[in-house]
């Protein structure tokens, strides 16, 4: 494959985006076909890239867009981890969105922006410099905003406002941080970590705070997380996207890049920035879980659960030790697969049965057993029950904590797992063990099921299970995370 | 003697300007403004700038004066209050202080600049190349013909801008008639207008013709023409044209168009607005005649104002 491959990969969704924008609503079939086709093509390309990069191929595309500022795309192992996750889940979400919306209004627009999101997320993953990263990161905000306000009601418009206020302010802080760093050291390329020795530690710390603070908005670090629960006003496929794939992951991914590829673990350790960040991540983990317990709305509960779970990645990254790194990176994938399962199930429940609140879940398992089955796998994974994928992440994180001399991490893990259980188990209990309410026609709603709405959740649930069961196989996320750690950070 | 005269002249200029600005009755203000303009003309004469003196008296005092009087009349007919003594408010004291301070600084800056004849030697050296004798005409129509070209379009544009103010249902009628309403007065004015228009034409043609060698030129000639047109219109000896009259539109654009065309022709031979050797004077005079005619019509129409709905507006 040529050096332009990363660019091609990023720009590919532009074609379905333009087609979607220009097709009138009545040609929905064509639009859906085009979207599925391109999602599949992208999966194929990424699969091929995975093979090549594992074989040691290094792909790079560089273009000087302003003096001294290169637009650099690079396919490395970490990038591919994020790219594979997003293209896989993208395919799934496309299928799900098609089934979820049916023939609703404004779908041409929806799928258009949907594809722009893929474009930006892939760009975020493949960025080779912090400034390129910023470009796609900002583009991601712009592309997701129309999705957040998709419903057009007062609630979603408000969510859109909050979303913009947080994310734009965050990226502005990030931009100031990286530009500051760039003026000091001349380069913010990920491949060649700059020499920071000449910069005063205080300045470095300040820049780190700006950057991580800016990225932490999208990663929903407490106290910058408020936009995420508000964004629940968006339709379920969008929530799935925000929570599992694009937005929060972009933030977390960016922080990982900052720690490992811009500052380098040595500098982060020297400056003593790892521990505060780990502490902040831990606070977020516990706070998110606590808030989740208090939510009566299913999607809100899942949203706070995301706040909590994404910080596992940051916890892993900030602990600076081989096991912790692997745990954090692998959770990037695991959390995505599990959380998207949960959101797709929640969407199906509300779509079919009108269930929105936890209290309405009574007997849902009997009405929609497959959906609830997938939900259950996702929930158990979140709690960390073996052999679902979440267990692997938590295991590695716990070990990593001990290894890095931070045994309190284990306590955080345990506490968080308990809280996870506290908010997921009652849901499972109601769904499986309580009888459904005797409302006229309620049962029939559940039986008139659309396979395409449920299939994606089943697939991701299966993937979550497989990622746990076959964690040691050659194609598992864990193996890839180990490869990243070996190649990049553990020499 | 000369110095005393100039000193008195300057004091009178300042005095008339003061009155024109501050007097209560606006008609008196206009009268003093016209006197001010004429004194300015004398100042230009004292400076030896006869070309400017002509332009100042014709345009600055003449056309502007007519314009102000006409506008005042129209506004009074509409019930506007223009008179009034602006002085007496305490804020004005602040304005006075600020403006005096500014004038003092400006005066100091002016004092630190030595008056000299600047580019006169340069211009003298270049004059033989264009064949005309009046250096001001040389600057206007050759050395800085580009300025003058653009300026002729400013004048044209001003008229179009005035037209754009026409009420929707007035287009494409003529501007409000300038004819006097009192029949007896009209009688007097008409005979004067009939007499003056041909004289104005002759004088304008003369001014343009001598302008290449002695003081005069397109702007001065055009203004005299405009004055003739206005007087004729006031006397009813001449109607004002409708704005969609094609012949009239051509008279408006003729001057700028010929200027532009000659400029572009020069480009074909070498450079935009460059005159071929030996033809400079002929081309300059050609441009000036067309320009003077268009300026005359344009200025007269500028004074007349935008098209109006009916004939009854004062």
């Amino acid at each position, binding site marked *: 494959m040529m050096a332009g491959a990363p660019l091609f990969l990023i720009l590919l969704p532009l074609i379905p985006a333009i087609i979607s924008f220009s097709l009138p609503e009545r040609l929905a079939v064509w639009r859906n076909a085009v979207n599925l086709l391109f999602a599949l093509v992208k999966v194929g390309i990424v699969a091929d890239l995975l093979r090549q990069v594992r074989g040691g191929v290094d792909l790079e595309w560089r273009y000087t867009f302003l003096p001294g500022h290169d637009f650099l795309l690079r396919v490395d192992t970490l990038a591919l981890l994020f790219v594979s996750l997003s293209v896989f889940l993208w395919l799934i979400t496309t299928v799900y969105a098609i089934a979820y919306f049916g023939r609703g209004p404004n779908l041409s627009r929806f799928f258009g922006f949907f594809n722009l999101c893929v474009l930006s997320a892939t760009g975020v993953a493949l960025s080779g410099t912090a400034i390129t990263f910023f470009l796609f990161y900002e583009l991601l905000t712009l592309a997701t905003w129309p999705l957040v306000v998709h419903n057009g009601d007062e609630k979603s418009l408000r969510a859109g406002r909050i979303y913009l206020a947080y994310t734009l302010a965050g990226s502005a802080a990030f931009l100031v941080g990286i530009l500051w760093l760039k003026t000091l050291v001349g380069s913010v390329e990920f491949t060649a970590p700059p020499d920071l020795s000449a910069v005063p530690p205080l300045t470095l710390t300040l820049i780190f705070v700006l950057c991580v603070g800016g990225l932490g908005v999208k990663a929903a670090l407490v106290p910058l997380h408020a936009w995420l629960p508000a964004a629940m006003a968006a339709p379920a496929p969008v929530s799935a996207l925000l929570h599992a794939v694009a937005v929060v992951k972009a933030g977390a991914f960016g922080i990982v890049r900052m720690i490992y590829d811009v500052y380098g673990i040595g500098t982060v350790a020297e400056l003593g920035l790892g521990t505060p960040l780990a502490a902040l991540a831990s606070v977020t983990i516990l706070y998110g879980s606590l808030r989740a317990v208090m939510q009566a709305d299913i999607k809100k509960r899942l949203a706070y659960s995301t706040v909590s779970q994404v910080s596992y990645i940051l916890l892993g990254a900030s602990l600076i030790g081989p096991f912790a790194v692997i745990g954090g990176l692998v959770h990037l994938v695991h959390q995505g697969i599990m959380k998207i399962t949960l959101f797709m199930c929640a969407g199906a429940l509300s779509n079919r049965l009108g269930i929105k609140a936890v209290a309405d879940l009574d007997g849902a398992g009997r009405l929609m057993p497959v959906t609830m089955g997938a939900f259950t796998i996702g929930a158990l994974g979140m709690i960390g029950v073996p052999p679902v994928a979440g267990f692997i992440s938590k295991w590695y994180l716990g070990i990593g904590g001990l290894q890095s001399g931070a045994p309190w991490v284990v306590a955080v893990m345990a506490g968080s797992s308990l809280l996870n259980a506290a908010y997921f188990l009652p849901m499972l209990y109601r769904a499986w063990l309580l009888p459904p309410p005797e409302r006229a026609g309620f049962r029939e709603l559940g039986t008139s099921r659309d396979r395409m709405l449920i299939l994606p959740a089943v697939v991701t649930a299966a993937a979550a299970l497989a990622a746990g069961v076959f964690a040691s196989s050659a194609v598992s996320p864990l193996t890839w995370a180990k490869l990243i750690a070996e190649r990049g950070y553990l020499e | 003697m000369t110095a005393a005269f100039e000193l008195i002249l300057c004091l009178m200029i300042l005095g008339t300007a003061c009155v024109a600005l501050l007097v209560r009755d606006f008609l008196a203000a206009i009268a003093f403004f016209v006197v001010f303009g004429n004194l300015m003309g004398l100042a230009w004469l004292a400076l030896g700038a006869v070309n*400017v003196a002509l332009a100042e008296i014709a345009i600055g005092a003449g056309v502007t004066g007519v314009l102000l009087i006409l506008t005042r009349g129209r506004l009074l007919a509409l019930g506007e209050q223009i008179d009034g003594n602006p002085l007496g408010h305490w804020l004005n004291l602040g304005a006075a202080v600020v403006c005096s301070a500014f004038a003092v600084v400006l005066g100091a800056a002016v004092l630190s600049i030595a008056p000299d004849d600047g580019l006169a030697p340069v211009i003298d050296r270049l004059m033989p190349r264009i064949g005309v004798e009046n250096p001001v005409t040389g600057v206007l129509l050759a050395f800085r013909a580009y300025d003058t070209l653009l300026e002729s379009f400013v004048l044209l544009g001003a008229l179009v801008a005035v037209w754009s103010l026409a009420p929707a249902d007035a287009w494409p009628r003529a501007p409000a008639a300038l004819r006097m309403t009192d029949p007896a007065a009209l009688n007097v004015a008409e005979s004067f207008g009939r007499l003056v228009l041909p004289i104005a034409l002759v004088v304008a043609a003369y001014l343009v013709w001598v302008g290449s060698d002695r003081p005069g030129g397109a702007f001065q000639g055009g203004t005299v023409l405009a004055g003739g047109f206005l007087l004729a219109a006031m006397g009813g000896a001449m109607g004002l044209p409708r704005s969609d009259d094609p012949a009239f539109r051509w008279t408006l654009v003729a001057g700028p168009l010929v200027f532009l065309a000659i400029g572009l022709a020069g480009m074909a031979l070498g450079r935009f607005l460059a005159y071929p050797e030996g033809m400079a004077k002929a081309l300059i005079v050609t441009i000036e005649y067309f320009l003077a005619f268009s300026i005359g019509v344009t200025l007269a129409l500028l004074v007349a104002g935008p098209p109006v709905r009916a004939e009854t507006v004062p």
Partner: protein
Amino acid sequence: MSLPAALGHLFPLTGAALVGLGLFGFIILRHPLRQLLAVNVIAAGIFLILGGLGRGEDVTDPYPQALVITGIVVSVALTALGAAMITRLAEDRCAPAPTPEPPGDRDA
């Protein structure tokens, strides 16, 4: 024409004073037509500075003279536009147009 040195600046200084005077008038006068008159006084002052500074021992520099003539013509053109606007505004104020042309945004 030889002048006492102190009087060499007479006309430009008068111009400067006229600028100040006109500015004062512009600030304190309320009616736009009177402001327009004040603007003409300022312009006359500027022209006097421009021309007066070109006064040499024997001749006055034709270069500023030409600039002044250009300036005078531009100034009368603008004064005419201003006067027309003031008149039209007064007309609209005392008798709104019977069939006003609809604002540009609405027609088509």
